[in-house]
Structures are given as structure tokens and as C-alpha cells.
């Protein structure tokens, strides 16, 4: 399969979350991920993209395929310029939500990926990176 051409994607509306899922699936298939790893990454991306729309007023997803010790991975970065997260520790807890979601998005995305990084500053926005390595 040729390298997916999508490297960045702007997401503004909830319906566009499905487009992010398709792009992540294409990347994961291209990198040779197994079905379970594909599904985990697509699901994590779906949660984070929806968070970005609901809480961050939309944002951008960046696709990247890093290499480490001969293994390839898929890294997704979700960047928004929304209100930011004041208490990251609390936001990471399952069941906590400031909206009307289930509060599983951040903790769930962390469990579904191998690496999880979050930077957020109130008033400036949130950037979350997740990476999953090919097994």
C-alpha cells in the first residue's frame, strides 16, 4: 500500500471525526499494524478528535511515522487552541468530564496507545500526542 498522503487534517465538526478514523486506519494498515492495534489506534483517535471538537472548538491532527530500534510506529498529534485543561490530572481520570461525555476519552486514549503526552495551558490550548509501535 502506498504511503498515505494525509499528514495533517483540520477537524471542526463532530461529523468530521469519522474522516479522522478513516485516515488513521489507512496509516495503520500501511504500517502493517495488526487488526487489534489498528482498532486501538483508530478508537483512541476517535476519542481525541471528538474531544478536540467538543472542548477545543476544533483543531488539527498531525500524522507521523517515527522509527525506533528498527520498529515503526504511528504517532498522532491533536492540537487545538481552545480553553486548555486547568487540571490535567483530574481530566485524565475515568468518569471526569466537564462536558456531557462519559469522561473516558483521555484515560481511554492513554490505555489504547503505547506513549501518551499531553501539554495544555489554560487560555492557549491543548496538544496531545499518542504513539503506538508495531508489534
Amino acid at each position, binding site marked *: 500500500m502506498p504511503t498515505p498522503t494525509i499528514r495533517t487534517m483540520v477537524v471542526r465538526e463532530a*461529523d468530521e471525526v469519522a474522516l479522522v478514523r478513516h485516515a488513521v486506519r489507512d496509516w495503520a494498515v500501511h504500517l502493517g499494524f495488526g487488526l487489534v492495534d489498528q482498532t486501538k489506534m483508530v478508537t483512541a483517535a*476517535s476519542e481525541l478528535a471528538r474531544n478536540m471538537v467538543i472542548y477545543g472548538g476544533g483543531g488539527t491532527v498531525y500524522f507521523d511515522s517515527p522509527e525506533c530500534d528498527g520498529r515503526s510506529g504511528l504517532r498522532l498529534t491533536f492540537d487545538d487552541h481552545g480553553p486548555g485543561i486547568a487540571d490535567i490530572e483530574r481530566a485524565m481520570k475515568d468518569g471526569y468530564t466537564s462536558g456531557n461525555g462519559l469522561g473516558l476519552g483521555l484515560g*481511554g486514549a492513554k490505555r489504547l496507545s503505547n506513549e501518551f503526552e499531553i501539554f495544555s495551558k489554560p487560555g492557549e490550548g491543548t496538544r496531545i500526542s499518542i504513539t503506538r509501535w508495531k508489534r
Partner: protein
Amino acid sequence: MERIPILKMGEFLLVTIQVDMHDRLAMALQDDLTNSIVKNLSRGVLIDISSVEIVDSFIGRMLSNIAAMSRILDAKTVVVGMQPSVAITLVDLGLSLPGVRTALNVERGMALLRDSIGRQEIGDADSND
């Protein structure tokens, strides 16, 4: 607008989700299903997700909502055909689909519905004595 078809099969409704559900489609399905239950006096709803490649918290919540709404309308809901990769992912996500009954395929789901409705009717008949 695009909609997910709802098939009437006797006293049950069958919904086969074959497209990647974007958010508006999921909301429309909740509305359509509750209306169909009332219109057809349905006793059970089977939701076949064997073609669904991912269930995130939004879709999970939709399934739980449908189960809760149909319970209030005196109908049972069974979600059938979940792919193993979806089940594995749901557990990591922390989603246990509260209140949603599941079966491995449509046939077993149908048997589960018939069984639970049959038992309910026997119970009703007993209480009338």
C-alpha cells in the same frame, strides 16, 4: 439525510449497521428506533454490529441509550456480532456497555429475545392468577 434502515421482523426490529457511523447518523438512529418501537409495538430490538470496525465512547453511549430507551418502552435490546478486536479495544477504553445485552450472532440474539420475552409473559400470566 442518510439513515440506517430499520427492518421489522414480526414483533422484533432488526438494525444492521454497515456504515461507519458519524455522529449525526448515530443520533438519528436513536430517534428512529424509539419511534419504530412505538409505531410497531415491538417487543425487542436486535442491533447487528458485525460490520462495525470500531466502537468508541460515543457509539457505546448510543448503544446504552438505545437499550435504556427501549427498556422504558417495554422492549429488550440485544447487540449482536461484535468483532473480537472491537471487544478487546472496548475493555481498554474502559467501556462496559452498561445495560446492553450481547450475543455472538443474530440467531443467538433472536433466541435470547424470544426467551426473555417468553419468560416475561409467563410471569405476567402468573401474576394474573
